[in-house]
């Protein structure tokens, strides 16, 4: 068993004569919080889809949780969690029903489900809202619940696609508390965000420009390298040179 959650080498995705993802290579360690940054249209979503087993790469090699992205897509799906700003929970099911549903999807036994469910509800302080429809919860709570549900089956890696977009500053930080908690339990976090302060919370991060990974390091090291005071400046320095503007 290796200590890498994701190993990615020269991964490419071609749509016709358009290279959406251009030979990206990176490793993500187990238990690491890895920030996956890039401008709109830089190829983040395409890369993430390949890693989640939703589309085949054109060339290159990658393993996710030890499984090959070409041959073992089903095994990958069983061993990852996924959450995005757009897709999260069923609004017209209650909190309890959502937990039961997703637990069921990932094949948790009834006793596991019960135990996990109670633990999850307690950690989020949602005891009183158990039987409320998810649609009635404030956005911040929904996002926190969605994240907790995405890791209910203890996946090796969880992919978070802009999980905190539009969330208030306090809830945003509570969300990151959850992320740290999950990382402490050994779950690897792969996260995209447009908030540059959140980039600082990552152990390491990469910045994609025009389908390539142009920088990959710890936040501190990146700032030193680009003699920038904030991640914002690092990002700006890199992405300003982007040629591509189409999604």
């Amino acid at each position, binding site marked *: 068993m290796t200590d890498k959650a994701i190993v990615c080498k020269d991964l490419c995705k071609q749509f016709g004569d358009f290279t959406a993802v251009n030979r990206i290579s990176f490793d993500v360690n187990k238990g690491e919080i890895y920030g996956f940054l*890039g*401008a*709109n*249209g*830089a190829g983040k979503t395409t890369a993430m889809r390949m890693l989640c087993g939703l589309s085949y790469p054109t060339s290159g090699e990658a393993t996710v949780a030890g499984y090959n992205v070409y041959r073992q897509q089903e095994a990958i799906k069983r061993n990852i969690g996924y959450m995005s700003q757009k897709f999260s929970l069923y609004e017209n099911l209650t909190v309890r029903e959502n937990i039961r549903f997703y637990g069921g999807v990932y094949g948790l036994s009834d006793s596991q489900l019960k135990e996990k469910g109670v633990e999850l509800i307690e950690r989020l302080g949602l005891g009183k809202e158990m039987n409320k429809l998810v649609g009635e919860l*404030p*956005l*911040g709570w929904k996002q926190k619940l969605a994240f907790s549900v995405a890791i209910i089956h203890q996946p090796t890696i969880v992919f978070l696609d*802009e999980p905190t*977009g*539009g*969330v*208030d*500053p*306090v*809830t945003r*930080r509570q969300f*990151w*508390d959850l992320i*740290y908690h999950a990382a*402490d339990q050994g779950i690897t976090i792969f996260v995209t965000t*447009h*908030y*540059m*302060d959140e980039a*600082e*919370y990552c152990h390491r991060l990469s910045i994609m420009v025009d389908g390539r990974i142009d920088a990959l390091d710890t*936040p*501190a090291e990146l700032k030193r390298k680009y003699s920038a005071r*904030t*991640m*914002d400046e690092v*990002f*700006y320095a890199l*992405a*300003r040179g*982007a040629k*591509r*503007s*189409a*999604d």
Partner: protein
Amino acid sequence: MPDAVTLEGITKTYDKGKVVAVKDVSFTVKQGELFGLIGPDGAGKSTLFRILTTLLLPDAGVATVAGLDTTRDFRKIRACVGYMPGRFSLYQDLSVAENLNFFATLFDTTVEANYALIRDIYEQIKPFSTRRAGKLSGGMKQKLALCCALVHKPDVLFLDEPTTGVDAVSRKEFWDMLKRLKEQGISILVSTPYMDEANLCERIALIQNGKILSIDTPQQIIRDYPGKLYAVRSGSMHKLLADTRSFPGTASSYAFGQYLHLAFTPGREGSAANLEKYLGERGHSGIEIEEITASVEDRFIQLMGNDR
């Protein structure tokens, strides 16, 4: 010259009063001002925009745009404002040029008539003028939408979350554009969930759960931060968060980029040295504690705490 926008005790509820979207909101946007409405999703920003653009009637209160009543004079208002709704609101199956021409004609003008106003922005997307709007990138869509909202040279411009979901570079460009528009005398009301964009406005209103937390210039809002604020860091940030919170003199401590932002409970402002010792005892190395000026986000978090 009347104020560009005034709101007086505006309240709006949905579902027959069950859901309160905005409650007793009052503020004024002066002529030629760049005013920011800062708050998270669900705070009520879009509801306010829709009331001001005459798309919704308030349950209570009076609002005016360019001196016109939003309920009574809605037709006149519709002729003199530009509006960019929260979601991408162009025809995806029409090309860039077709969209622009359509909206120009809709407002009974031509692209040429006010070209000076949109030139800077339009030149950037002009190379793609035959491309369908649906095939543009996020940043370009946003520029096209802005052109379409500007093409009739409106007196007041309403931009509802124009930078949401847009990357940092495009956001910066967008704010530069707004600054130039402001210089041409257009009053702008813009909303955003990104607190760091607040500093780019002349005045801002912080809004949360349908209520205004504070209205002032960003500088004054920062000055109003009560007490002192410290930036703290050490080698192990996650552990630091837990340890600072357990320190007896801590009022609040939360992550802020590479630092924690920490405030002491009133009367214990001198405990910075104590904290450093406390943290040292808990095995932290490379401890830094430094007094800093608060940001709008710090003030927002502090006001949210009061609100609870």
